[in-house]
């Protein structure tokens, strides 16, 4: 039932990508499974918002998991490869058994590759110029999940903010597509976090500014590059598919 003994592949060239793609059809690689876990976690964070009131402990644990994955992906440079892999693959492959992730790092030791930072940095700088048209600035470290968290903990009205949340999820995945991991932090930089502060809400101070923020989120501009748009859309369709599976199960 579960895959065992699969070595993790390092993405440092086209050749490896093809090899991995071929391998994917037979057995999902560590990176795919890790990506699947990341997708699943993000969906869980969103889903728990639609319920009565999110279980804070569960949300914190999931968000910490997301952060771990993103840190590891940033370190070994696979963050760049999300885009390339996604085309032409059924979304179900992403949710195949993630048994490898259950194994301890000791068991994966032989397959683990020392990340090379040089490739990562080069691509990162390249991406910055592409994204200059969007309102994203360079961040110093991987803080991606933090602003994700602020949105997650403090949503006081899941029904009203459902529209905003779908938007936020779109933005999250758009950002992941844009090969700029640090920009997730900036995704929410325009949002005044005090709006989501429960204590502030209780004192009723933010009632007036609430409507303004909803407007602000709705007019958030989408990425300009057509490539990222199409990938974004295909990923969203896959995401819907994933959500369907999770909800039906």
């Amino acid at each position, binding site marked *: *039932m*579960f895959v065992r003994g699969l070595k993790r592949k390092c993405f440092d060239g086209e050749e490896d990508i093809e090899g991995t793609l071929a391998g994917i059809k037979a057995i999902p690689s560590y990176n795919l499974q*890790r990506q699947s*876990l990341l997708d*699943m976690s993000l969906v*869980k964070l969103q889903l728990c918002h639609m319920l*009565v*009131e999110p*279980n*804070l*402990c*569960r949300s*914190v*644990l999931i*968000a*910490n*998991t997301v952060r*771990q*994955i993103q840190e590891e992906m940033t370190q070994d440079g696979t963050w760049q490869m999300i885009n390339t892999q996604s085309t032409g693959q059924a979304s179900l492959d992403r949710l195949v*058994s*993630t*048994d490898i*992730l*259950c*194994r*301890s*790092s*000791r068991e994966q030791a032989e397959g683990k590759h020392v990340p090379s930072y040089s490739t990562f940095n080069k691509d990162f700088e390249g991406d910055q110029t592409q994204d200059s048209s969007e309102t994203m600035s360079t961040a110093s470290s991987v803080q991606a999940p*933090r*602003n994700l*968290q*602020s949105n997650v*903990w*403090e949503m*006081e*009205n*899941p*029904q*009203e903010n459902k529209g905003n949340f779908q938007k936020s999820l779109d933005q999250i995945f758009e950002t992941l597509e844009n090969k700029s991991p640090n920009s997730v932090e900036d995704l929410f930089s325009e949002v005044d*976090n005090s709006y*989501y*502060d*429960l*204590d502030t*809400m*209780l004192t009723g101070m933010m009632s007036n500014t609430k409507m303004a923020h909803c407007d602000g989120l709705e007019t958030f501009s989408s990425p300009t590059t057509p490539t990222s748009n199409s990938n974004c859309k295909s990923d969203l369709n896959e995401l819907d598919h994933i959500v369907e599976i*999770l909800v039906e*199960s």
Partner: protein
Amino acid sequence: SLAGFGSLMQDVLWCFSQVKGTIDIGVTEADIISTVEFNHTGELLATGDKGGRVVIFQREQESKNQPHRRGEYNVYSTFQSHEPEFDYLKSLEIEEKINKIRWLPQQNAAYFLLSTNDKTVKLWKVSERDKRPEGYNLKDEDGRLRDPSMITMLRVPVLRPMDLMVEATPRRVFANAHTYHINSISVNSDYETYMSADDLRINLWNFEITNQSFNIVDIKPANMEELTEVITAAEFHPHHCNTFVYSSSKGTIRLCDMRTSALCDRHAKFFEEPEDPSNRSFFSEIISSISDVKFSHSGRYIMTRDYLTVKVWDLNMENRPIETYQVHDYLRSKLCSLYENDCIFDKFECVWNGSDSVIMTGSYNNFFRMFDRNTKRDVTLEASRENSKPRAILKPRKVCVGGKRRKDEISVDSLDFSKKILHTAWHPSENIIAVAATNNLYIFQDKVN
């Protein structure tokens, strides 16, 4: 009987005693038991459910005529403790589910307990009425007022026996003190105060004062973006009224002394086991999250439950537990699936027996486990209707982890993860245990010779 003290587990044979609840195939969500607790003498057993109700069972007196029926538990009182509420500010429902019940020690004829949902703690008084006054002067038998001018003589009302009536009345309501969900309540050994803990804060209450509480722990970061850890359970020391512990989602326990400062943000002791780096995976943190913490009756040890293990800590040793027991290690390779179906977030509780020699906790497939701390023996038992013949001895169960499955074993893939034993209770001085299996309450006792 004092069979609980010093008895070795191999000598104890657990027998089915009673089961409460319906046998219907479909489970009504409101009937799901969410907490179980014996009172300090073991005479009463309380359960709370998702529908906000509390049911109290009372042990009947042992009869010389029927020695084999060792004090069965029968329904004593049932009442609606909490109702669903709506928080208009946040447009969210507040569940009526009873998260915890804690008894106060008995000080007069009445019984007192605390029950809590996510937001509000209530103090309930449960008292008996078996007499009623008769012969009022100003009222007639039906209660109607009599015309004073028609009264020609006076009499003294007398108390006459009536059918026993058990009434539960809410004596105090402690509300509006928790922004986040309450996970624990604990009565202090001074019997004058108690604490309530939510995800980020712990408050100290005086039983007499409902409009005010003291905040003694606050781990909410100034910037919620930096939140990475929450409080998962808290309990007062059984003897030292200034000492309490609280556990976290990162697998740590902090012991605090209320004498040092009003806000116990700095712990007196910090219990954490160093992580085994070779065992690290993406799920390491989640499975290290502590779901329950309990002081031993002696006050010398604390027991913690995380997803796969139960650990016993000596209060004098902070760097690692003195004992670790594997509850269901065969789940370690299934963590991904358990993460996907959310089972990895299930919060199991754990309990000590009266002499602190045996500990018990629940698992899946309606299994529960006991560990004898002295002999290091453990046993897996099952709460099921199939084993529910009166005084039937429970047969130990075994999970097959690979290779050939023996006849009575069950394979990991056949386990029913919807049947989880999250809540159990152990009688304070006898070998009587209460096990909540979804909407059924099982009571097991040790075999009478």
